[in-house]
């Protein structure tokens, strides 16, 4: 890994911004370009207004809100089971991972804990939805950079993971499988064996993407040294997940907090990268996909026998109180601040989604950058529209 020293990083940004300023003094007539809301590079309806000078961006500002469904208002009129179905539509690629923090927060309020077996199966499904989410990212990364083939491979291998999730939970995209106190059902027969085979396929997929994309010199020259985000700026903006770890911050919520899940049962490594550029972010995500495969394979052998659900009354009334739980979702740190006043539904749920913070750095990151690099930086930050707009 080439580690660009801080001086190099800042000099690169300064030079880009300097060129942009120079052009402004020459009175060259700038052009305002709207990228989106209907655009192949934005994963959904995000609009980025950028003022260009030639091919360089002087000022860029994302304008979100085209997909705002008003989740926090909706949760106020729904009961707890209904909010679980609502909540896995926020990050629709890694959808099971959305339900888990909300359910953990409610369980913390009710001071109950899912049985051992449910915790392990929850962690396995959590990692499976991470693999489904990030494998699509790896394929889509190719399309953003212009290579057509990786996206088809991504969809092909992601299909196996989605079939697994559908086999266990019933829904490919919206499993709605998590309940306060455990899971809705147990795993069907033969599921564990099938998962093991799919994990082998997914490892193969990661190797193919590494050869096809990451090994490719054109790809490296497009990604290295672009969109460098130093660690303290990342922390200031609240970037989380692979974006933070790519700037050299060794922080992973799966390892750094004790939470009613089974990550501590498997031994796996948290990958970081010193550079903090677009390449580092994508490289860290590729290694994390491999780590997830490793976690799933190890946990598959450690599923204890036992019930899948603890004793929970049929009509759930969560006692009064406030709780905050956040987990390491595929996109970053997703957390729920659940305020309950003791009746059927939550009183207020603050949904802290990862992409909202990840995208708030775009105006800072896009200064003085070329037009194709806008797409590179956006692709490397990897956001999902539902996550930004909620």
């Amino acid at each position, binding site marked *: 890994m080439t580690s660009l020293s801080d001086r190099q990083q800042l000099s690169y940004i300064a030079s880009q911004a300097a060129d942009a300023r120079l052009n402004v003094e020459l009175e060259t007539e700038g052009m305002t370009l709207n990228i989106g809301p209907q655009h192949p590079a934005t994963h959904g309806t995000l609009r980025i207004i950028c003022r260009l000078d030639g091919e360089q961006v002087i000022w860029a500002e994302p304008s979100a809100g085209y997909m705002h469904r008003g989740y926090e208002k909706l949760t106020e009129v729904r009961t707890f089971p209904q909010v679980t*179905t609502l909540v896995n539509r926020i990050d629709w690629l890694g959808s099971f991972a959305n339900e888990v923090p909300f359910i953990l927060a409610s369980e913390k309020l009710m001071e109950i804990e899912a049985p051992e077996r449910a915790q392990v199966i929850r962690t396995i499904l959590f990692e499976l939805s991470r693999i489904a989410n990030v494998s699509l990212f790896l394929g889509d990364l190719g399309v953003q950079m212009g290579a057509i083939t990786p996206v088809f491979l991504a969809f092909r291998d992601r299909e196996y993971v989605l079939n697994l999730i*559908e086999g266990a939970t*019933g829904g490919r995209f919206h499993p709605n499988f998590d309940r306060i106190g455990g899971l809705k059902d*147990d795993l069907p027969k033969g599921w*564990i064996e099938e998962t093991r085979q799919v994990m082998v396929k997914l490892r193969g997929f990661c190797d193919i993407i590494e050869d096809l994309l990451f090994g490719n010199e054109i790809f*490296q020259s497009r990604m290295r040294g672009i969109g460098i985000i130093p660690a303290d700026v990342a922390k200031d903006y609240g970037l989380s997940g692979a974006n933070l770890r790519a700037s050299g911050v060794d922080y992973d919520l799966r390892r750094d907090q004790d939470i009613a899940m089974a990550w501590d049962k498997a031994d796996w490594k948290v990958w970081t990268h010193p550079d903090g550029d677009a390449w580092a972010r994508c490289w860290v995500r590729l290694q994390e996909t491999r780590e997830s495969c490793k976690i799933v394979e190890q946990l598959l052998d450690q*599923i204890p026998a036992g019930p899948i659900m603890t004793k929970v009354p049929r009509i759930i009334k969560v006692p009064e109180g406030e709780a905050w739980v956040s987990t390491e979702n595929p996109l970053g740190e997703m957390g729920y601040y659940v305020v309950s006043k003791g009746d059927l539904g939550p009183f207020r749920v603050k949904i802290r989604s990862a992409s909202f913070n990840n995208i708030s750095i775009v105006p800072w990151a896009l200064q003085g950058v070329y037009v194709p690099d806008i797409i590179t930086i956006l692709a490397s930050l990897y956001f999902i529209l539902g996550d930004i707009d909620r």
Partner: protein
Amino acid sequence: MPDKPKVPGLFKGLGVTLGILKDTVVDGANTVQYPHEKEAPPIRARGVIALHEGNCTACMLCARSCPDWCIYIEGHKQLAPPRRAGGKPRQVNHLDRFDIDYALCMYCGICVEVCPFDALFWSPEYEYSEPKIADLLHDKEKLGEWMETVPEAPELEAGAQKK
């Protein structure tokens, strides 16, 4: 700017695509030619909701707990023959109308879970798209028809405790 492109990286990429070409030619593509061959969805797939009319007592629990308000139920009370010979005729709810509007439904499955009399089941059927959106309002008979497509519940993985 770009360091001189090292050759191996580029050619490894070419090798990969050629490899996939060979795989597709040798052991067939991963895609399924849909109208001719169909992929069977897993047993638990949530395709459509089937109604077992006999069990339904119009208790409206599913309609009340549906987040999208897409279940419409109407019924009336009537007398039913007594269970035991000499017994008093029972008052029972008779179901007149039980519609599920699949244009609104988000397939969350709360109604199937909450139904105390096991009248609603999931069936993995997925081919019921309609040219007109109004036809997505399935009435009692249509939901009855889906009943045969409801599969047996799969046995569970080893170590699972029977609920």
